[in-house]
């Protein structure tokens, strides 16, 4: 048998075409917005060394001719789009999408930094810092949703953990105790979510909302009653940066990824662990089975409720780490509502990353980057209101969710109450 049977899925074909158009559109954006407002002879300088004492090996800065680089980027994007339209990249198309998005960002940076210099490493370092709580929230969402429980209470869990880490850390005089207590507290909220959603069969959005309100009210209550009045209750100390021995010497990657504090490394560890657990262990298979088709999983003897309880509990604890990072990992104090929607951005990153740990981490990095960059825009005198940059993550998520560019498939049984028969 030599005939190759190709099954053409009209949906896939439509999406492949849409993707090709998107690449071309991105190329045109580079041309229309950036090329046309640059003039020949402009140079953009990117600093590639952190502006502080580091272990990293210093390397020279990069200077790009703005106009030529922008033309090249626009052409590459359009060319990739044409190739996608004509014959398609097949399975590599998501990777190409990432590449073109990267080109767009680079083009934007080159344009923004014309006639100026921009410390790229500084931006990337901050981006990783800002991405960390988002990524932890996203991992929490993945843990819960892969087992079929929607967790919109991540925001509340982070907020609670942040408050507990500040209060207990200060009371006990130990950041480690604070970390432990914080993770336990958000785990308790996870348990509450699980009990309400599984045992009492409450709609998961409603139980999540209740937990969010409870956490917002509870943390603000304690903050207003105790923390603002007694400053020594809100001074837990901070995990200091710890450069990884050899890796931190690598230029660019070293200072960005391997000169961080404990919680960032915990995130990296969790990423790998979760990836391996989810796709290569029995627990992961069961989790995914419970999230996709609980009835079938139950028939095979998997305890659906137990899997969900475990996952949501773990999810709560991971979300708590994100909250701890905001206090013990950056500003070592708790402020009311300090999460400011990071839990929800985490959910967005989870969707953008298609419920996959590394995908979600990539999405978090992009969101962290836009967040960092919108703060830099005024300094660079970019004629775009920074608020639009702030909207970008949410808009991207809505576009991804709508399936225009690459479809985001949620676990099939997500949000549904499972009744044992």
């Amino acid at each position, binding site marked *: 048998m030599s005939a190759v049977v190709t099954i053409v899925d009209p949906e896939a074909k439509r999406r492949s075409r849409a993707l090709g158009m998107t690449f071309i559109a991105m190329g045109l954006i580079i041309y229309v917005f950036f090329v046309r407002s640059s003039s020949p002879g402009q140079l953009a300088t990117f600093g590639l060394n952190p502006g502080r004492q580091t272990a990293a090996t210093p390397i020279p800065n990069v200077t790009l001719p703005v106009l030529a680089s922008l033309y090249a980027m626009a052409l590459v994007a359009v060319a990739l789009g044409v190739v996608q339209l004509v014959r398609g990249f097949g399975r590599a198309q998501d990777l190409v999408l990432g590449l073109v998005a990267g080109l767009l960002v680079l083009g934007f940076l080159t344009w923004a930094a014309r006639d100026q210099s921009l410390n790229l490493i500084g931006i990337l370092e901050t981006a990783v810092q800002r991405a960390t709580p988002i990524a932890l929230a996203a991992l929490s969402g993945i843990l819960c949703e892969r087992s079929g429980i929607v967790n919109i209470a991540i925001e509340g869990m982070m907020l609670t953990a942040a408050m507990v880490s500040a209060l207990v850390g200060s009371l006990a005089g130990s950041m480690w105790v604070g970390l432990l207590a914080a993770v336990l507290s958000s785990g308790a909220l996870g348990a509450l979510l699980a009990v309400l959603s599984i045992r009492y069969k409450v709609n998961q959005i409603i139980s999540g909302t209740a937990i969010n309100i409870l956490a917002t009210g509870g943390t603000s209550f304690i903050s207003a009653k105790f923390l603002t009045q007694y400053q020594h209750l809100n001074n837990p100390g901070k995990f200091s940066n710890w450069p990884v021995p050899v890796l931190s010497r690598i230029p660019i990657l070293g200072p960005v990824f391997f000169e961080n504090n404990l919680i960032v490394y915990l995130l990296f560890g969790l990423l790998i662990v979760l990836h391996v657990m989810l796709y290569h262990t029995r627990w992961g298979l069961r989790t995914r089975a419970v999230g996709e088709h609980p009835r079938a999983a139950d028939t095979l003897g998997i305890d659906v409720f137990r899997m969900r309880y475990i996952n949501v509990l773990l999810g709560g604890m991971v979300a708590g780490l994100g909250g701890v990072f905001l206090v013990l990992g950056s500003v070592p104090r708790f402020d009311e509502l300090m999460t400011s929607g990071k839990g929800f951005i985490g959910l967005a990153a989870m969707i953008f990353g298609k419920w996959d740990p590394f995908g979600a981490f990539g999405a978090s990095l992009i969101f962290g980057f836009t967040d960092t960059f919108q703060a830099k825009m005024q300094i660079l005198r970019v004629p775009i209101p920074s608020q639009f940059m*702030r909207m970008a993550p949410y808009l991207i998520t809505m576009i991804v969710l709508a399936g225009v560019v690459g479809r985001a498939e949620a676990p099939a049984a997500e949000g549904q109450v499972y009744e044992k028969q």
Partner: protein
Amino acid sequence: MSRSPHNRDERLQALLMPLLAIVTALILGGLLIIVSDLQVIAAFTRIPRQVAVPFTNPETEISLEEALWRHPNEVVIGDAVEVKGKQLRVVGDVRDATTQIGLDEARALYPELGPGVTIHFTFFQKPAVGLRAAWRAVRVAYVALFEGSIGNPRQMAQALAAWLRGDPSLLNRAFYPLSESLVTSTPYILTGLAVALGFRAGMFNIGAEGQYFVGGLTSVFVGYSLKGLPLWVHLPLTLLAGIVGGGLWGSIPGWLKAKTGGHEVINTIMMNYIAFALSDWLLNGPMMRPGGFRPISPEIEVSARLPRFFGGDIRFHAGFFLALVMALLVYWLLFKTTIGFELRTVGANPSAARYAGISLTRSMVLAMFLSGGLAGLAGANDITGLIYYMPNAFSAGYGFDSIALALLGRSHPLGVVLAALLFGTLRAGATRMQSVAQIPIDIISILQAMIIIFIAAPEIIRAIYRIKQRRAQEQPPEADIVEGVQA
């Protein structure tokens, strides 16, 4: 076999459950007030500390003010003290020397808190002190809550009596709390209706906050940019702008759900943040008040303001009646019209609705437009009735509170109005509770969260009060809402 006693029983339970949920939440809130009260904590823990003025070492010393404030034996206004066998009440300024005593004098009579005294706080030496402190914490808090939300009954009676005698000067002060409660309830009614309408149509509108913002933006724009119009043209236009703005903002997630299946919960949350950023940009740019540096919009014209009925600082305005009318309209639309029937059918069972020939797209977009429109009207109402301009910090957490309202009101307009009155009253009263009893206003959020949990999981309440469920086959009414949403 007559079904009526069974039905009556069920109806009784439908009334009883929310009531028990509220009472249980208030009891738990009371416990929270007790355990977080510094005087109670002081009475129950042993922290020997020296009173010093000025204090230098926070580990071993506390200031006189703090000691006075913390100590259960502290003398404050309102206390009864014993002077030469007479029970006197401590007041700020003494009017009646036979029953009252000044605060300074009372403190002088009980000088045990002077500098240099060591305070031991132990519960087991004096359990009565701790219990009294606990009782006082709850009593002071809830009395303040009541007086801040309804008013002081004696003051109100006196004011009414004076008014009947022809002296209306006391009315304003006595009825100010009640007016504030109704004012606070108004946006709650509207946003609660918004979420309830969405629930009925199977849409989970978690974005009332963003729609409220956008409604505020559009209405404030119409309110300040159109000039020279008469009130009866300008005011309806301004309110309509709020409805349209919020409605369009809300219908985007509805359309996305119908066309692409993108879940409206995520999309409405995303649109909330987009709305905040949009408003931040508008108020810092195109809509910024000329000549100002703060991110606020210009004031709206006088012709775009909702009328107030009483002078002075009574902020009660026509928006309250507008909200009630909207509740009636929503009731009529949902239960008396074909459109409402279609919306409810889509909410209850989308596939059945589709087989019956109802357009899902039209219903979803319409439901979200109406829902968003109500939330937008809430924003317009606050603009035209209360603040007259758009500040950057316009939000007050209506997005999540309104879900609680819809749940508590069982997604029925009348229920939502009652729930909104309760929440508005609680919130207005909490302001006074914060100033009188030093209890942060956030306790209301905690109460609200508990009410949601108890309403959504009635088994918890049944377990606490040992209420038996009649028949297991009959699902509680929330199940309808929830099923609609999940489908």
